[in-house]
């Protein structure tokens, strides 16, 4: 039995190793997740270069592409501002980045890739970044005294429960995203695997639900929860 979680298998939705190499005596596998991640990154970088060029040569009456870029930036700006208020300018860059990254990762299942976010190794670092942001901002804006006061919230002996509550945040955030995307991937693989004789055309409806709808909702939820937690950590610090 394989020891690495979901690394190899016979079914279509498993992560497959492409090739392996030795790194300091440790066998390291390059898997489909790495490759799909690279493809997603290249798409985003290409979009960014094109957007940069379009905005540098911006015209008074915007063309199609410039219009799209302005719409995306406007929407992300509005989303961050509506839920973070005064702290929004500090975090709009990071939130927009993870929003676009997770969204394109989630809907990459539509283009035949295995979504990179259906790998726990991709979503867990995102949760860890959120955890670090919460921790850092709590220390920065509420100082050590406020941090300790928040830890012993109702009574001092309640502190272990609060610590567990804090540590559970990145785990539940990353598991939510991972399990949602994985469930969609598994469902699509089952449909294509079991009904391969009659799976023509109509699975598109399932793709719309599992890849587009579910992916967009989970992206929104991840960013929204990150913003809520960080805004909560900042508290009244910016007044």
């Amino acid at each position: 039995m394989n020891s690495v979680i979901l690394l190899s298998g016979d079914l279509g939705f498993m992560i497959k190793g492409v090739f392996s190499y030795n790194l300091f005596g440790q066998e390291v596998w390059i898997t489909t997740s790495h490759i799909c991640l690279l493809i997603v990154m290249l798409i985003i970088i290409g979009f960014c270069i094109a957007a940069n060029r379009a905005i540098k040569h911006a015209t008074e009456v915007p063309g199609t592409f410039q219009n799209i870029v302005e719409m995306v930036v406007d929407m992300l700006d509005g989303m961050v501002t509506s839920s973070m208020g005064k702290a929004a300018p500090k975090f709009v860059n990071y939130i927009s980045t993870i929003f676009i990254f997770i969204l394109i990762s989630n809907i990459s299942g539509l283009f035949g890739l295995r979504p990179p976010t259906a790998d726990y190794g991709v979503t867990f670092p995102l949760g860890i970044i959120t955890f670090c942001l919460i921790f850092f901002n709590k220390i920065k804006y509420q100082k050590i005294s406020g941090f300790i006061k928040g830890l012993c919230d109702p009574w001092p002996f309640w502190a272990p429960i609060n610590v567990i509550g804090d540590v559970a945040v990145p785990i539940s955030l990353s598991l939510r995203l991972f399990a949602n995307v994985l469930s969609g991937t598994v469902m699509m693989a089952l449909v294509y695997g079991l009904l391969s004789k009659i799976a023509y055309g109509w699975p598109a409806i399932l793709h719309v639900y599992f890849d587009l709808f579910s992916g967009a909702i989970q992206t929104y939820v991840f960013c929204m929860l990150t913003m809520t937690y960080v805004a909560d950590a900042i508290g009244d610090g910016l007044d």
Partner: protein
Amino acid sequence: MEGISGADLIKACSAIGAGLAVIAGIGPGVGQGIAAGHAAAAVGRNPGAKGDITSTMLLGQAVAETTGLYGLLVAMLLLFVQPLVG
């Protein structure tokens, strides 16, 4: 029972366990339904706040969904990683 080895028995029981684990989906189903019902009532009372109500409802539903997803993960681990088969 002659031809059944210990590993086969564990695999069969893992499959039953996976089926039992996804019963966890009942809870989030009820919870999301209640949230959606209350959101519909809220939109009926105050149609102007439709956008805010929808985003709040989606956020709450996604958080409520987490426990169901834990059940799904346990089922997946039992079926595909098979930690109990030594």
